[in-house]
């Protein structure tokens, strides 16, 4: 089936540094999402993005977070500066349509460790 890729698979950085997580969504998809999963907990919605704009974000999407998809390339999540509590697995997803019944296709996640 359609594949979403995430780069890198693992990232270790020092607290206070900037990190960019990259997502290569399904090629004809228009809607993009980030979810965060802290070890042992559920995946939680961060943000969704369409047509160059954030459509909805959760309380977890702090001011230090930003998303963009420049020129239809990677969909990125940038954290600047990072904090210890940002350590988690970040899943990217994409969908062709939006709405309750639109299937979201997920990537394998990027495991971020902030030291």
């Amino acid at each position, binding site marked *: *089936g359609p*594949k*979403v890729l995430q780069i890198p698979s693992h990232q270790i950085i020092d607290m206070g540094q900037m990190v960019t997580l990259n997502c290569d969504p399904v090629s004809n998809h228009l*809607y993009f*999402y980030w*979810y965060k999963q802290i070890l*042992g*907990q*559920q*995946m*939680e*919605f961060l943000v*969704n993005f369409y047509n160059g704009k954030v*459509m*909805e974000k*959760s309380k977890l999407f702090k001011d230090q977070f930003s998303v963009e998809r420049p020129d239809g390339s990677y969909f990125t999540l940038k954290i600047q500066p990072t904090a210890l509590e940002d350590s988690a697995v970040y*899943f990217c997803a994409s*969908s062709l349509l*939006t*709405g*309750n*019944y*639109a*299937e*979201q*296709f*997920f*990537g*394998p*996640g990027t495991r971020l460790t902030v030291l």
Partner: protein
Amino acid sequence: QQQVRQSPQSLTVWEGETAILNCSYEDSTFDYFPWYRLFPGESPALLIAIRPVSNKKEDGRFTIFFNKREKKLSLHITDSQPGDSATYFCAAVGSALGRLHFGAGTQLIVIP
């Protein structure tokens, strides 16, 4: 507040048995419930989903039973196979923008 809860956290069954994974939710406006399956090292993938207009959805060995009044649903995996060993996530959607609310997952182990 956790919107979607799953139990058990971990489940072990023998090959051929039926595995039952439980899910409950808080928000009565949720109107779509997909189940995702995650194999280690891979991506979560949609397995089966149900809308509240139905109380049952079947796809091969996988069946969702839905109780709208009690805000509960369950995933039944009949004739469980070792290849079914994975983590299963119940999710719910109530937003027109497709925001998924996930449970914490049930890790299923099927012993040959």
